[in-house]
């Protein structure tokens, strides 16, 4: 029997690199999964077109969901974008857009999911909300200013939600991944912000692997493993925490070439 048998799950960004791996894992663990995203990737879970910046659409979605599901056990807020710029080169439009998706989208989705989440609060592990922060919410990668700021906001929002809704039987945690092999990471490598000037993509990737104590960067499945645990009843005492998972990257100081 799977760890999530009998549970329902709603995953925003469910067709993205990490989101798709989460939906696939949830499905294998026996959950009824909705992959909510802008466009369908044909992956696991039943696809629902979902825009985290559209409040009316979010309200509609959860009203409709309430007619089909008697409770929502798991909400994963994984929708997010990255802008590879310093603040100087970030336009106000870009800034507003990344906050609208990474922070406001999390706020709106969680807000309108609450009534259904409360109905799952009677299960042994309670309802579980899992937000996507980042190790970039703690320390900065160069040329990712707005992204770093949104992730810092997610970390604070996670603790606030955990305090406010813990007493209602809703656990709220954030996962803070480091480098994970996704389309977003490939885009970062290929962008100017990576500083990979003059290096081949493979040389840059190898250099990145070498800086990790585990000598590799993560796969989406590594992140899905932790999401799965936080979603399960085994994590019933885990709340309000920021779970860094980064192959040991941020345990160390910058690695000088000595």
């Amino acid at each position, binding site marked *: 029997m799977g760890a999530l048998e009998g549970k329902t799950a709603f995953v925003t960004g469910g067709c993205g690199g990490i989101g798709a791996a989460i939906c696939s894992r949830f499905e294998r663990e026996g959950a009824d999964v909705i992959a909510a995203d802008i466009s369908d990737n044909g992956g696991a879970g039943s696809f629902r077109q979902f825009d985290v910046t559209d409040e009316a659409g979010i309200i509609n979605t959860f009203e409709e969901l309430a007619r089909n599901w008697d409770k929502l056990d798991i909400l994963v807020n994984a929708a997010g974008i990255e802008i590879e710029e310093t603040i100087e080169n970030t336009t106000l439009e870009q800034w507003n857009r990344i906050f609208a998706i990474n922070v406001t989208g999390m706020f709106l989705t969680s807000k309108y999911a609450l009534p259904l989440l409360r109905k799952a609060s009677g299960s042994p592990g309670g309802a579980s909300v899992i937000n996507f922060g980042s190790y970039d919410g703690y320390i900065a*990668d160069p040329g990712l200013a707005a992204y770093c700021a949104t992730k810092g906001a997610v970390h604070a929002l996670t603790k606030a939600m955990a305090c406010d809704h813990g007493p209602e039987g809703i656990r709220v945690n954030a996962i803070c991944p480091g480098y994970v092999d996704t389309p977003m990471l490939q885009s970062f*490598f290929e962008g100017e912000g990576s*500083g990979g000037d003059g290096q081949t993509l493979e040389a840059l990737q190898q250099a990145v692997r070498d*800086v990790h104590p585990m000598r590799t960067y993560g796969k989406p499945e590594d992140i899905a493993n932790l999401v799965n645990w936080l979603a399960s009843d085994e994590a019933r005492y885990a709340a309000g925490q920021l779970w860094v998972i980064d192959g040991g990257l941020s345990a*160390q100081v*910058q690695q000088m*070439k000595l």
Partner: protein
Amino acid sequence: MELSGKTALVTGGRQGIGRTIVETFVDHGAVVHTCGRDAKTPSLPKGGHWHQTDVARVDDVAQLGALLGTLDIVVNNAGIQIEKTVTDSTDDDWDTVMGANARGVFNICREFIPRMHKGGSIINIGSISGKVADPGMALYNASKAFVHGLTRSIAVDHGPDIRCNAICPGWIETGMLEAGFNLADDPKRARSDALLRHATRRFGQPEDVAAMALWLASDASSFATGQCYTLDGGLTAASPLNPGLS
């Protein structure tokens, strides 16, 4: 002057950061006692006094306490660095590093907290290495994390009479740093690579640490306690993975 009429003890003041803190405190009006394992008295500025004390030894510290009487400011600066992993570290290495960096700070605090005036300030020299790991420095990293934990405990247990904070320096230009670069295959390249990892594009100077120690010692910081303040030119604000430098 900020420290007029105050008496301070700065451990390990013969050289480097400790020495600069001694000079700064004297310049700002304090009477400053400093100590180290050397019997030979180093040249100190007027107003500075040398004592031969091994902070790792309880008897030495008790003697120093009896000799100095009451104090306003204590700076636990004395420390030793051994560059080894856990499996390479010997029992002697443990005694050396933990003796000075952990036991020493404990010894000094236990002896001098009862001897400090109300409003007194303890300043421990921690390290960024107590927050994130420097490779191959296992015991040193752990000893500095001990310092950070002890700092919070003292602030909680001995407030409101005494304040206790730690300064966590990054790379400070002392003889120790230069020796590190000289071990590199290409010392010049090592230095420029390290500089690029600092948002300030410079390393710290002992004066930078002394300036913060002065503030923490003075009454200007009277609401600051229980904190571990990082002073590292932005080094640890950036990801360990600085791809542009890979």
